[in-house]
Structure formats: structure tokens, C-alpha cells
């Protein structure tokens, strides 16, 4: 573990520090360690990408940051998540509510399921604003501005729409607008483009980068695809089976991956114009049992 901690030391003091985070799930008398002593740091205005396959514990890490995981005994979180000197894992629920949304906002994985189907998008974004910035005078105008910022055409008209009236890309934009409405300092984006087409993916990633630079926000990007990491993230942490196997500056990790697993993850992406007969796969690295366990855990 000492190596990991050494690696995670970022040059500037981080806005969010994760130290020795451990997440255990208890089910059927068995314990499954989803996250195993990981340490991360996100610097102010920087993007940290957590990359790993499904079941590697990357989403659980994201959820654990603001205690969005189920309470014990089903799930036990240990370690420290330090934000402004406070440990989010132990602070009182009331204090935690102050940080959630306002300071640390989320963009969840599947916009289709994360949005509430029975409320208009205006209502859903207004909810966040009402809760976290009650002094806001004209929430409607703010919502329109937020929708405009994420590139939705004619936001005045779209504001009354329900999620089913929007395409997947638009839903994801609404999710981002909702997260940004409270001007958070940290955005946790959990697979923001996985459900989307490559063309829309490129648009959404460009949008996130744009907004991040405008607002000086920090982003924790959770993804399985190294393809979207390059040109977007400053730091990269590669996770496998609950552990961080490699961590470092994005350019370095991509050009000179040290760990075999990182290399495999990068190589298994098909590259245009380089037509190998077989794609390198990392099946051999992954034990059958691990795959089965993840299958149980996430209902996949």
C-alpha cells in the first residue's frame, strides 16, 4: 500500500483526497471487497480519470465519495475522504447534505434511468437549485442558462419536456446541466458517454471539457474506455479488482504504461487503420471467478 500512497501524492494540494478507501459488500454470509485500500487525489481544476473494466470497483469508488452506497450492514466503507479538511465518511448527515450536489455533483451512468420519468426537466433541475441555492431569485432563467450551456437547442421550449421526449444524448446533457446548476467544485462523471453513440460521445466529452475550463471545476471521470481519456484527463488511475494498479499523469500512462494490465486495456481498443487479425484481449488476465462475482454483484 505504501507504493500506492507514494504514487498518489499530487504536486499541488488536492481539493479532494481519498485515503485508504475500502468498501466491503456483505451478502449471503460472504464478504466481497469491491474497493481495496485505494488512495487518490484530485487537484483543483484538474481531471482525474479512473479507468477499469466493469466490476473493477470504479463506480463503487465514485459512489463511496459522498456516501451514496447502501448503509451497513449491507455495505461497509472504511478509510478517509477528505474535502476541505473534513472527512466525508464520518461527518454528520446534515453536514454531508451541504456538500452533496453543491460541492460535489454527480453525472450518473445511464441518463435513461437516472432521470425521473414523471417530472419535467425544469422541475428536476429546479429541485437541485431550490435545495442547494435557495437564495436564487429566478430559477427558471438559471435553468434555461444551464440548458443553453450544455448545448440544448431552444432551451425555453425544451424546459417543459419530460425525459422520454429527449434522445439519449439530450438526456445526458440534461443530467450534466442538472449537476452544473449548483456550480459544484467537483464533478463525478460516472461513465457519462457509455450509453451513447461515438458521435454524441465526442460532443459530450468536448462539452464537459469546455465547462470544466470555464468554471475551473475538478472532474473525476469514471470510464472503461481509455479512448475517451486521452486529451481529457490530467491524471489517470487504472483500477482492477478493487485495487489501483497504476496511477500517474495521463500522457505518461498512455504512452508508457508500466503495468501489463494498463497496456492490455489500451491495446484492446481497435485503432483505425491498424488492422490486426486479432485484438489483444485481457481475458487471460481475468479469473473466471472474478467475472462471476461481478456478475452477481452488479446484477449484470
Amino acid at each position, binding site marked *: 500500500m505504501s507504493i500506492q500512497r507514494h504514487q498518489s501524492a499530487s504536486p499541488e494540494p488536492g481539493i479532494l483526497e481519498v485515503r485508504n478507501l475500502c468498501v466491503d459488500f456483505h451478502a449471503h454470509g460472504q464478504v466481497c471487497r469491491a474497493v481495496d485500500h485505494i488512495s487518490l487525489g484530485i487537484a483543483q481544476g484538474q481531471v482525474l480519470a479512473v479507468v477499469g*473494466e*466493469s*466490476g473493477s470497483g470504479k463506480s463503487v469508488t465514485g459512489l463511496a465519495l459522498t456516501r451514496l452506497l447502501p448503509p451497513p450492514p449491507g455495505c461497509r466503507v472504511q478509510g478517509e475522504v477528505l474535502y476541505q479538511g473534513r472527512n466525508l465518511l464520518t461527518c454528520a448527515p446534515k453536514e454531508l447534505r451541504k456538500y452533496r450536489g453543491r460541492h460535489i455533483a454527480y453525472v450518473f451512468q445511464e441518463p435513461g434511468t437516472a432521470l425521473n420519468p414523471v417530472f419535467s426537466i425544469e422541475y428536476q433541475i429546479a429541485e437541485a437549485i431550490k435545495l442547494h441555492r435557495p437564495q436564487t431569485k429566478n430559477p427558471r432563467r438559471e435553468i434555461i442558462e444551464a440548458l443553453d450551456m450544455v448545448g440544448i437547442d431552444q432551451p425555453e421550449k425544451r424546459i417543459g419536456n419530460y425525459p422520454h421526449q429527449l*434522445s*439519449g444524448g439530450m438526456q445526458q446533457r440534461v443530467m450534466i446541466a442538472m449537476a452544473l446548476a449548483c456550480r459544484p467544485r467537483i464533478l463525478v462523471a460516472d461513465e457519462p458517454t457509455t450509453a451513447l*453513440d*461515438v*458521435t*454524441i*460521445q*465526442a460532443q459530450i466529452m468536448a462539452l464537459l471539457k469546455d465547462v470544466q475550463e470555464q468554471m475551473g471545476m475538478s472532474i473525476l471521470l469514471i470510464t*472503461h*474506455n*481509455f*479512448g*475517451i*481519456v*486521452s*486529451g481529457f484527463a490530467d491524471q489517470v488511475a487504472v483500477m482492477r479488482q478493487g485495487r489501483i494498479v497504476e496511477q500517474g499523469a495521463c500522457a505518461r500512462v*498512455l504512452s508508457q504504461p508500466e503495468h501489463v494490465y494498463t497496456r*492490455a*486495456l*489500451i491495446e*484492446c*481498443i*481497435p*485503432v*483505425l*487503420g491498424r*488492422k490486426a*487479425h*486479432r*485484438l*489483444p*484481449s*485481457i*481475458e487471460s488476465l481475468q479469473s473466471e471467478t472474478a*467475472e*462471476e462475482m*461481478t*456478475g*452477481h454483484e452488479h*446484477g*449484470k
Partner: protein
Amino acid sequence: MSTGNNKTLPAFEGGPGGVYSARTKAVDTPYLLEVQHLKVYFPVHGGLFSRVRGYIRAVDDVSFAVRPRTTVGLVGESGSGKTTIGQTLVRLIRPSSGSIRYQGKEISKMGKRAFFPYRKKMQMIFQDPFNSLNPRMSIEQILSEPLDIHFSSLGPGQKRKQVLKLLDLVGLGQNSLPRYPHEFSGGQRQRIGIARALAVEPEFIVCDEPVSALDVSVQATIINLLQDLQEELGLTYLFIAHDLAVVEHVSDEVLVMTQGRIVEQADSETIYRAPQHPYTKKLLKAVPKV
């Protein structure tokens, strides 16, 4: 397909709407599947008595052909009509007009009974491995159902042997038989979907975004599996995806589709080296680069 020529289908020199004599080519064709001027329109109902108010042109005058033992990639964004084409080929959707020839035989206007033997020859692998397997059926039931329909003469012992062979083909163990879909990961489920498609020993498989719902690492193993199976069993694929990098990797030939029309067709090298249509260029640009 290695000619490096933008028009690899001599039969369609004129492109959609070109001169193509239907009668002369009816027999003895080098193509396994030929699609000409395929149109699929969906009626839009509205108003009192829900009259037909208009049509959505999901597939609008599409022509292409597939040679045996090759892979034709079909790429486009969601809503471009690529899944509709795939489903029309295996007759999950009826075309509005146009012709689909399989080994020179017109299949789009066949009756249900006449089409039955073709169901065995043409199979489909579906997009979402989480929704395309019946959660209440065990893997054994899922894999033996197509055998019950198309190989009804098989005895229970033979059937089981065949199911085990299928599992082995896609790299799953014998212990999977009594288990249910929820017990498997996404990649394993897609393997089951592939095994189900292979059960009836098809010649032609429509792979409808078989890897879009999977992690990149799992995606690689499934693509490898599909390519191995193609070599081993001499299969022909129509490979549908929205990611041009994936399509370019697996295909001999690529069709680029947008808004119901094919805007570019060329072999995969040419598509990458010298894209012609602005939409193809846009797709190429959208591919994430490491």
C-alpha cells in the same frame, strides 16, 4: 475486397437507382445476399380514428450485396436505420418495397411457410445481452429452443450433445447449462446470444451492435470470438455498429448510413484512408484516439 477500389460491387455501378437488370442476375450470383432499393417506411398515426398521417422513412432506397464468407460492416448513428435494415433482412420487419435476394432467391415477398427454411439460414445476434435473453429460461432451455423448432427430429440425447457443443464453441463451460441469464456477466451473456444464433447452423448472421453494450476489454474478446467462428464455420456477417473503429476492424467492406440512406460504401481500407462523404469524415473524427 482487396482491390482498394471505392466501388467494390460491380453490380451496382450506378449506385442506388442505377441500371440493374433483375432477371439476368437471378441465378448464379457471386453474392450470398443482395438487397436492392430496399425501403422500410413506418406509418405515423394521429388524430381522430388514428389515421395514417405520414411515414417515417427508416430505410430509404438502400442497395448493397454481401459475398459469402465475408463481413459487411454497417455503420451510422442511432436513428440512421441500420438496425431496421438488419431486422428487415431476417424478416423481423416487413419491407415496404424493394427486393432481398438470398442465394439468388427473392425472400422479401415469401409467405411465412416458404420463408421458414430461411430462418434457419439467417440468424441474428442482438444488441443488448441484458434484454435479449429470457430471464426465466435456463441456458439449456435457451439454446435448445431453436433446435426444437428447426431440428425437431433430434432426440433428447442428441440435443444435449449439440447444446454442449455450442457452449464449447463460444467458450463457456458445461456447468453453465442449468444456470439462468442473471448469473452471467455482460460478455458471457453475449456469448450465450451468439451460441443461440449458431444453434441452427446458419450461414448468414446479422450482428446488431453485438459489442456496443460491453466494456472495451470484453468487446475485444467478443470480436475475436466472432472472427474465429467465421473462419471455423464459414459464416457471413452483416456487422452493425456505431463505432467506425470496430466496424473497420472486423469488416471487409463498410457501408456508411445516415438518415435511412447509404451515403458511402467501400472496402474498409478505403473508408479509412480516403473517406468521401462528409458524414464518414465526421464519424472518423468521432472515433476516440488513444
